[in-house]
């Protein structure tokens, strides 16, 4: 394991703010581990524990088989010795220094290299992150994207062993976000250190994560490789928090392992799906299907290619890819504007989901 951190920390309630209880076990072998969750879930606190800016009450932190923290033996490596590159929400470039001085401060602080090598490393990083022309500027004279590049360059000066990024794209528009993801690619060429990135943005998580930890109220609700977490949410709460699923209550009416079939009852309609191993007839639960795979049936006489439901239309709004239709039971589907024109005015529409896209979670 490259990252193995068991963290327990209690923050007592004080002056109006409620107490907070962090209890997580972060285990990851991936290049990029993303902590995904709403604000106040404890993501930044987790990151601060890893970086050494918060001390857990119990637990231990192992990074690349090196012990950073161990509560029973009272071992606690100070942040100066952890060699964690840390990107803060607002980048925290030293405002009284130029970009070059920021990098030089980093190089001189750790003294991992000889003088000449330090100089060379700074010049190289300025070049890679296209900062050479901006090296004499102070942070206040830089744009958001430039600050970001400077912060990344500064972080890499000392060849960190662990990279910690706290909502690095907060406040950046879509174009700059994409530029930032490209930069992370560049960063990967210079540093193979495992990265832990905190975000509340689902798309960012999809874009970057190898390993995902979904976080809520100080706990991990589900951890695992990205594809698995997104395709197989462990509970209906997790599926709901991801916000990409249509979720309906369902029960198992029949199971047929021989033909790899199961029959579910969804809102009174029989649905055929793949065999559900480990389930019993009569089990109650939910079906989850991606909003992107939920189709609206426009022509009534088309043969049914999947499981259908006749649902009441509640509203329709313009979206990036066409129209986004909101049905009863909080079901959402997107269709093209042309198709929407064809079925406009209908009070009820058929929605259809291919059997493979239906995922059943138990209660």
């Amino acid at each position, binding site marked *: 394991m490259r990252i193995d951190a068991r963290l327990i920390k209690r923050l007592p309630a004080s002056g109006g703010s409620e107490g907070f209880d962090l209890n997580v076990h972060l285990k990851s072998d991936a290049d990029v581990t993303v902590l995904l969750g709403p604000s106040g879930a404890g993501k930044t606190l987790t990151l601060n524990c890893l*970086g*050494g*800016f918060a001390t857990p009450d119990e637990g231990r932190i192992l990074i690349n088989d090196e012990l950073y923290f161990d509560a029973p033996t009272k071992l606690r490596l*100070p*942040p*100066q*010795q*952890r*060699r*964690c*590159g*840390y990107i*803060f929400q*607002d980048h*925290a470039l*030293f*405002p*009284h220094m130029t970009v070059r001085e920021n990098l030089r*401060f*980093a190089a001189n*602080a*750790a*003294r*991992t290299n000889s003088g000449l090598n330090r100089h060379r490393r700074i010049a190289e990083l300025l070049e890679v992150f296209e900062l050479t022309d901006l090296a004499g500027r*102070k942070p*206040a*004279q*830089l*744009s958001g994207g430039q600050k970001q590049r400077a912060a990344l360059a*500064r*972080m890499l*000066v*000392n060849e960190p062993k662990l990279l*910690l990024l706290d909502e690095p794209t907060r406040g950046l528009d879509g174009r700059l976000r994409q530029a930032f993801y490209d930069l992370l690619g560049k960063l990967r060429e210079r540093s193979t250190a495992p990265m832990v990135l905190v975000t509340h943005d689902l798309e960012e998580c999809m874009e970057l994560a190898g390993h995902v930890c979904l976080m809520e109220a100080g706990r991990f609700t589900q951890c695992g490789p990205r594809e698995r977490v997104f395709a197989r949410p462990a509970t209906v709460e997790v599926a709901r928090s991801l916000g990409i699923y249509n979720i309906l209550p369902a029960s198992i009416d029949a199971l047929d392992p021989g033909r790899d079939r199961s029959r579910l009852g969804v809102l009174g309609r029989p649905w055929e799906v793949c065999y559900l191993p480990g389930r019993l007839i009569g089990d109650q639960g939910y079906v989850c299907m991606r909003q992107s795979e939920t189709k609206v049936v426009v022509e009534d006489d088309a043969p049914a290619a999947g499981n259908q439901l006749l649902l009441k239309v509640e509203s329709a709004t313009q979206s990036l890819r066409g129209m986004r239709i909101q049905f009863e039971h909080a079901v959402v589907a997107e269709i093209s504007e042309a198709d929407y024109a064809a079925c406009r005015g209908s009070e009820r529409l058929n929605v259809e989901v291919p059997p493979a896209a239906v995922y059943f979670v138990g209660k």
Partner: protein
Amino acid sequence: MIDWFPLWLSLRVAALATFFVLTIGTSLAYLLSHKIFRGKNLMDSLITLPLVLPPTVLGYYLLVMVGRHSPLGHLYEGVFGQPLVFTWQAAVVAAFLHSAPIYIKAGRAVLETVDTRYEWAAHSLGASEWRTFWRITLPLAWRGLSSLASLSFARSLGDFGVTIMVAGNIPGQTQTLSVAIFDAVESGNGRLARILVIVISVAALALLWAAGYLSRPARTQGAG
């Protein structure tokens, strides 16, 4: 002819007191703003105490603590070959006591306004606490601290009560400006008192203006 020795002495005393305020005071302010330790509240109260106690009480304490028969007084006499009380150096101690509490309290607030994230960033880059203080915290707090230092200098010029208790009123040796004014008024020398009052007022005004000038927000910061 006016004897300008008190003005010269006051400036010397204030300069030295400000030096000690900057070194000792800044250290204590850093301790209070950045460290969590047992007895922090007590220390804070002790630092505030000189602001509320009458100068006579402070002077009395000082006489007891650094007098010729106290261990500290002995130590001082052993090192410097002369007692501390009733010398101009005692006036420095008095001026320090007069100006340090305000500097430490306000300096703590200034140091606390430095965004912790800059210090964390420095630590994460491998910088020691010492290096972080000198290269990050102090430069970012410098504007506020230097303004406070000029305020301290002005306050050091004006101490009267403790100075007269521990340094006395020896013309040409320990008579500072404020003590000289008292002396002039007492002895009916109205012209000398008037001149010295104007001198000290103008000096204080200039220093306060400088303090305000130093603490004004920089125009370049926060842009972009």
